[in-house]
């Protein structure tokens, strides 16, 4: 489903975020990526939908070359890839519904989206997605009036409304408390198992990774240093990925 071929990313300024990554992800996989801050997790995720363009190498999603896609093709590819963010990236002053509808931007004409004239079927899709994350009743509430966990669920709804084949989650629970984090992770897992959406999640809480992951990938300094089943991973492996011993801040723990 997703293939990384010799992908390297060097940012202007010289920082090399990814070093020659080769990776294959199958359809329906639930993949968790761990690694220190700056290890390249975010970059890897963003190379998947070309928000970050690899300096060398190619990324393929569903057999389509993302890296050298034209503008038009890229829009098509991106519409099949949903993404959620650590800081939710919702438009605070807009309603929940409006935010979810931005997931449908690629499917309506520019004019309609600009004036907010969404056809009924698009709105219905948005409502459906909100229903799947169980916050339909908040549709007309301003996004900034929701709690962190609710906002992330809106982010998931936005991604779901795209009817995506792939779901990318960049540290989706980093700003949430343990209980809410588990709720969000459960939604992601549920979507993966029920709808078969290939999911990649960046996490820095190791216990959460073990709790929810199937396959685990470890990045250190831009290199792939671990690739295996979550059930096979040991604390020593984690230490290797992090390049140091595990601290309590690496675990989300339970709610007191």
């Amino acid at each position, binding site marked *: 489903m997703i293939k990384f071929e010799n992908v390297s990313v060097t940012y202007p300024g010289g920082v090399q975020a990814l070093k020659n990554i080769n990776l294959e992800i199958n359809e329906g996989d639930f993949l968790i990526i761990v690694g220190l801050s700056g290890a390249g997790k975010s970059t890897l995720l963003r190379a998947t939908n070309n928000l970050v363009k690899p300096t060398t190498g190619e990324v393929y999603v569903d057999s389509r070359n993302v890296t050298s896609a034209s503008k038009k093709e890229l829009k098509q590819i991106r519409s099949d890839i949903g993404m959620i963010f650590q800081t939710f990236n919702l438009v605070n002053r807009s309603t929940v519904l409006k935010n979810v509808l931005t997931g449908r931007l690629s499917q309506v004409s520019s004019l309609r989206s600009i004036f907010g004239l969404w056809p009924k079927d698009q709105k219905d899709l948005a409502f*459906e997605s909100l*229903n799947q994350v169980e916050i*339909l009743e908040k*549709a*007309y509430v301003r996004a900034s009036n929701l709690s962190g966990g609710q906002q992330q669920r809106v982010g998931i709804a936005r991604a779901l409304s795209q009817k995506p084949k792939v779901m990318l989650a960049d540290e989706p629970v980093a700003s949430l408390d343990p209980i809410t984090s588990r709720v969000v992770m459960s939604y992601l897992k549920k979507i993966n198992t029920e709808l078969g959406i290939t999911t990649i999640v960046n996490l820095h809480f190791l216990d959460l990774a073990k709790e929810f992951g199937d396959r685990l990938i470890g990045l250190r300094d831009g290199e792939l240093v671990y690739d295996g089943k979550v059930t096979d991973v040991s604390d020593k492996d984690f230490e290797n990925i992090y390049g140091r011993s595990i601290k309590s801040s690496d675990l989300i723990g339970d709610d007191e």
Partner: protein
Amino acid sequence: MKIPKEPLQNKYFKYGITFLIVISSIWSASGLEITLERILDAPRQIGILVGAMFPLDLSEEALDRIIPKVWESLFIAWAGTVIGAFFSFPISFLAANNTSNSSISRIMKQILNAIRAFPELILAFVFLPITGLGPLTGTLAVGVHSIGTLGKLSSEVIEGIDEGPLEAIKASGGSKINELTFGVIPQVIPTITSYWLYRFEINLRASAVLGVVGAGGVGAELINQLRFRDFPRAGTVLITTIILVLTVDTISAAIRKRIIQGKVKKS
């Protein structure tokens, strides 16, 4: 699946505002007799004027007339800002409710509001019969108006300071004067100084304009050249004014940035 209804007041508010804007525009346009015809013809007419300005009149005669006036605008703006800064500084302490008592502060604020309300040009009118034609009138007009605006802005800065350092000074036995000198003034100087510079930028434009009523500056030149249909010369006046204003703006903006950022200097 229970789909919630959209709250009505959002929709009404949006439509209401749009309606208000459209209606008031149409009312204004028709009241001013601005027809579609005139609007469509305007670009052509503007083009004719611009075309008539080139080639610019860069003769020695023209520049001899114009350049001194441009400098004059600069002097008026600078001197006016100096007057404004000089007088507004003490006044702002009287007007701020944390450095003076509440009744004085209220009175001073009203006085400042009253001064501020009059555009420089109107002030120039009032001063003209008294101080006559020439740059002095312009300077006074700009200066008095600046006292008003700078006074208000400075007093707001003073009101917004951190009281902590003042408390510390009081606690160590300092007098009110000490509080002012070591607590208030260091906190407000950077922002107030940057307001002075910003005022200078604005005053430059005002002083250019005051020439229209004979209060000095390059405005008189422009209006005369336009009246006499000497468009190349008018163009020269415009270009020289633009160059002056751009230069002052750039330098002033850079200095202001430096002043504000200077607080967070690299150690």
